[in-house]
């Protein structure tokens, strides 16, 4: 599974949070196929879950006619996951810092923070053809805060 075409998997579904568990299971299956260990699976899955929750709630405003598309790209050294919605995107000013003492006890505003904590590269992109996407990567050899070494597998089996 080395050429870019062969290693790209796309998943599309309607804006229903009833799909979140399914999406996370699929993320786990794909991350496992990509050679990630149990802990990475967990943090990748949580990041996908948060990005998809945002796509459904903020991007598509829970409109069941609007769809969410996830593209999983597997390459030798990383997995790149793109979560697309049909919304207008995120303004930087809208992304709160949940560690700010003023925000510490707020009930919301930790989703993007989790994605940024657990993935290696995270970008937000408003698409010229319409819609918005979050692009996030996880390197196979990466090590970050929320991660232990047990069960790691850095060479894709």
């Amino acid at each position, binding site marked *: 599974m080395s050429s870019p075409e062969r290693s790209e998997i796309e998943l599309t579904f309607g804006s229903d949070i009833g799909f979140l568990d399914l999406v996370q299971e699929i993320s786990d299956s794909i991350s496992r196929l990509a050679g990630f260990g149990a802990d990475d699976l967990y943090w990748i899955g949580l990041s996908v879950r*948060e990005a998809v929750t945002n796509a459904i709630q903020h991007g598509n405003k829970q409109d069941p006619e609007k769809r969410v598309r996830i593209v999983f790209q597997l390459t030798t050294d990383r997995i790149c996951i793109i979560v697309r919605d049909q919304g207008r995107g995120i303004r930087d000013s809208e992304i709160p810092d*949940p560690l700010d003492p003023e925000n510490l*006890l707020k*009930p*919301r505003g930790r989703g993007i923070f*989790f994605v940024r904590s657990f993935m290696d590269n995270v970008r937000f992109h408003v698409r010229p053809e319409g819609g918005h996407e979050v692009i996030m990567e996880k390197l196979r050899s990466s090590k970050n805060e929320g991660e232990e070494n047990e069960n790691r597998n850095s060479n894709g089996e």
Partner: protein
Amino acid sequence: MRIETRTVSDVTILDIHGKITIGEGSAEIRNRVRDLLQAGRKKILLNLGDVSYVDSSGIGELVSSFTTVTNQGGQLKLLSLTKKLRELLAITKLLTVFDTYDDEGKAVASFS
């Protein structure tokens, strides 16, 4: 998510089972806590040992419950965090906010 309620001396223990995530009865813990406060029960221990998954909404749910209780002069503490939940609370700087315990007896005894 499923919540069971127990009482040990004047502490109410909520045993929470399953997922604390968006959609999974998101407001259930908060509502249960509000009912307890209305009944005058202000020492609340959330037992999270059987919680299988928590997302950012779930963290928010714990924070809301905490502020609601604190604002009414009560105390809300956490028992038996899983390793993953402890990590989430650590990176969000909430471990310093919550009083957390691994031993139920010690947790109950800690309420003043």
